[in-house]
């Protein structure tokens, strides 16, 4: 982790296949004054699971919203840079266009439609589909296959289901649009560790069996790096470090600041004053 990583050109890895999603030097300003992203670049290969890591307020959600274009509804604006999906620029499109092209976001905090039943929630995900009832009904069954628990609760109002069920509903709802890529924001939020594991297992299966590419923003660095193949670490609206999940996991700074594993093992209370101050790249 060094300062030089900040303004480097877009990372080149693999090289062989063109990335499915490429974010180039994107800058985001909220309300015309608040600079949130200061030039973020990242790439997601087709069929990959890429993690976007970082603390609260680092810009993970903003990055995802800049891609899905949900930003505009929050008075945010992409002022610089570009986003390319499948080789085409998509930063001027509406969220509706993006969903049609196969990019869908699962928002932080689930955002289920509380007064709709679980099944109706899932069906709203098929809003952009044009292939007719049969295909949609088949996909509904498929979603129930991945989330059997949702089938049991299909007629309950989503507002009365548990946090885990809501997260499953939100992911299932996104699946109903037949996405090529899901932008998954903070899937672990407010869930019990066991459920978090379950959700990530499903993400992996969807990735392997349905070929869905994932870009996931996550605070829980540990679990995200176990399931993702590549990771970007954001701080203060910039990518400060990126690399293979394996490399990141063994990086000393990542261990120290994000995984909670100090180099020296357990510290004695006396050493606290020598404790390394957390680095910031401002």
């Amino acid at each position, binding site marked *: 982790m060094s300062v030089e990583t900040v303004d480097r050109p877009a990372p080149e890895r693999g090289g062989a296949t063109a990335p499915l999603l490429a974010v180039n030097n994107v800058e985001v300003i909220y309300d015309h004054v608040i600079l949130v992203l200061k030039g973020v670049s990242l790439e997601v290969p087709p069929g990959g699971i890429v993690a976007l890591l970082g603390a609260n307020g680092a810009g993970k959600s903003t990055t995802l919203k800049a891609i*899905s274009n*949900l930003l505009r*509804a*929050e*008075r945010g604006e992409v002022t610089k840079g570009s986003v390319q999906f499948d080789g085409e620029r998509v930063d001027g499109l*509406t*969220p*509706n266009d*993006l*969903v*049609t092209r196969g990019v*869908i*976001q*699962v*928002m932080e905090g689930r*955002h*289920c*439609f*509380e*007064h*709709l039943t679980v099944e*109706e*929630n899932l*069906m*709203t*995900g*098929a*809003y*952009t589909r044009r292939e007719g009832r049969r295909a949609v009904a088949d996909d509904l069954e498929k979603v129930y296959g991945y989330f059997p628990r949702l089938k049991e609760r299909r007629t309950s*109002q989503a*507002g*009365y289901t548990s946090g885990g069920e809501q997260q499953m509903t939100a992911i299932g*709802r*996104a699946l109903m*649009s037949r996405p090529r890529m899901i932008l998954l924001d903070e899937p672990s939020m407010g869930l019990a560790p066991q459920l978090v594991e379950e959700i990530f297992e499903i993400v992996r299966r969807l990735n392997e069996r349905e070929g869905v590419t994932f870009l996931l923003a996550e605070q829980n660095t540990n679990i995200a790096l176990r399931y993702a193949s590549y990771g970007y670490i954001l701080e203060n609206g910039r990518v400060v470090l990126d690399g293979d999940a394996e490399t990141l996991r063994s990086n000393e700074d990542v261990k120290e600041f994000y995984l909670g594993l100090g180099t020296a093992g357990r510290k004695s209370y006396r050493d606290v004053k020598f404790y390394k101050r957390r680095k910031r790249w401002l």
Partner: protein
Amino acid sequence: MSAFFIDPFVDIFSYPAFFLEVLIGGLLAGVMYSLVALGFVLIFKASGVFNFAQGAMVLFAALTLVGLIDLGAPVWLAIVATIAVMVTLAMSIEKVVLRPLVNQPAIILFMATIGISYFLDGFGQTIWGSEIKTLEVGIPKSPLMVGEVLISRFDLFAGLTAGVLVAVLAIFFQKTRVGRALRAVADDHQAAMSVGIPLRTIWVIVWSVAGIVALVAGIMWGSKLGVQFSIVLVALKALPVLILGGFTSIPGAIVGGLIIGSGEKVAEVFWGPALGGAIEDWFGYMLAMLFLLFRPQGLFGEKIIERV
């Protein structure tokens, strides 16, 4: 005391046919309130906005219809043209008012609808004039005798229309893709956008539907009272109906209308003398106030779901 607690019941039981007549008259009059309340419910359901301009939309639709008929258009053509005007109005409202105010608190949008309301009042009367006009679309007006009970044919027709309207709307909201999207938008704008539901289209649809409902209400009230500015005030009567039925429930708007309509007529006729008359004017509001105290979401309104 006896004038209040005993005499009215004595009257009711001594003249059951008369009571029935008052009750039925009240129920059917209530349906007329429901027609206006429906427009409010539609927009509130889909955008969480209390549309103050609903009354003005009723007047505007009625004025446009009468204006076109006076220009010599046949009734059916005038109705089709008025529907087109209401859809255009919906599109303009979305473009000029809703789009710039996206993501603002509901109270801001509410104030914007007050603005729309004044604009429509003025605009409609500037174009079509402000004198009272009669609207004649061929609804029968002669009363009907069923046994000993006198029923207004006009009110019966209004009740039937409202019933059909509600059935169509209920199917639209519950069973269709667009209806589901409308409810989704009502629950959570952002999430709706995130799954690819285009908000602008949805708003245009919902305001158009509200415009068409306003036209139906305008035809009914216009035929009954004549097309004039005071139609706007009918919207005030829809308020207790909404509070009773719940702001988010289409059946609620109907049941609320029935309760308010029958309640105020029965109260006026049987309890009016004990209280010096004119109960009808405030009975609905008093009932609404009681509801606000004990059941603020109304009879059928969606409960505010809060999980801890």
